[in-house]
């Protein structure tokens, strides 16, 4: 029998991205937290404050970056858990497609909400 372990698999950067987005999150979540829950009085902004806050272009960029990082990190994490189930090759490919779709929907939704709020 052929030895399946002796074949070089496709290289992957998933773990590296998980770590990079993770490090990004530590920084961005820190900022997000401080800005939204510590600086804001009472720990949360009311509607007017949220709109004003998001209209600041620097904040907007950071929040969008945060959205990208957190979605990627979360879905890579979910993917890692699913890969631990020892899926077949086609199932692994399907998993990637589904998670990519979920990722685009999540980011799209987040951007849409933000756009409608600051419009």
């Amino acid at each position, binding site marked *: 029998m052929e030895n399946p372990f002796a074949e070089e698999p496709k290289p992957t950067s998933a773990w590296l991205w998980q770590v990079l987005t*993770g490090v990004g999150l530590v920084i961005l979540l820190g900022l997000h937290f401080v800005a939204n829950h510590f600086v804001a009085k*009472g*720990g949360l902004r009311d509607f007017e404050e949220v709109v004003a806050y998001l209209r600041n272009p620097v904040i907007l960029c950071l929040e969008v970056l945060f959205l990208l990082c957190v979605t990627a990190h*979360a879905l890579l994490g979910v993917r890692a858990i699913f890969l631990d189930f020892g899926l077949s090759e086609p199932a692994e490919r399907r998993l990637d497609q589904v998670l990519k779709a979920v990722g685009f929907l999540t980011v799209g939704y987040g951007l849409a*909400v933000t756009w*409608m709020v600051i419009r």
Partner: protein
Amino acid sequence: MSTLNYRKLSRSGRWLDVRRRRLGMWAYVLNRITGLGLVVYLYLHLGVLSLLLRGPAAWDSFVAVARSPYVLALDVILLAGILIHGLNGLRIALTGFGIGVGAQKALFVVIMVISAVALWVAALKIFRV
């Protein structure tokens, strides 16, 4: 050769079994549980943000609910998850880059201590507002 194999489903749940396991395993399981919790929270959070689209009244009534002590208690749990997952993530990143591999257990203890202290401070701050 006929062999006894464990069912795939029961095998897949084995990562949760921490009986007689050591610190590194606890860190892994904690990281995974907090990670799953945070994914759930992420989508709840995104869902809640849709209230912003329903205008100031909807949002501000949510803010009022969010300031109730019960929700604040949930916030403390969330914060615990974030602290453990975030700091342990840094530990995994470091060891993955080949740094502090020999000290992984000590690192885990350190992050748990930092988490506990930070959580205490944050909880005091949250409930005093």
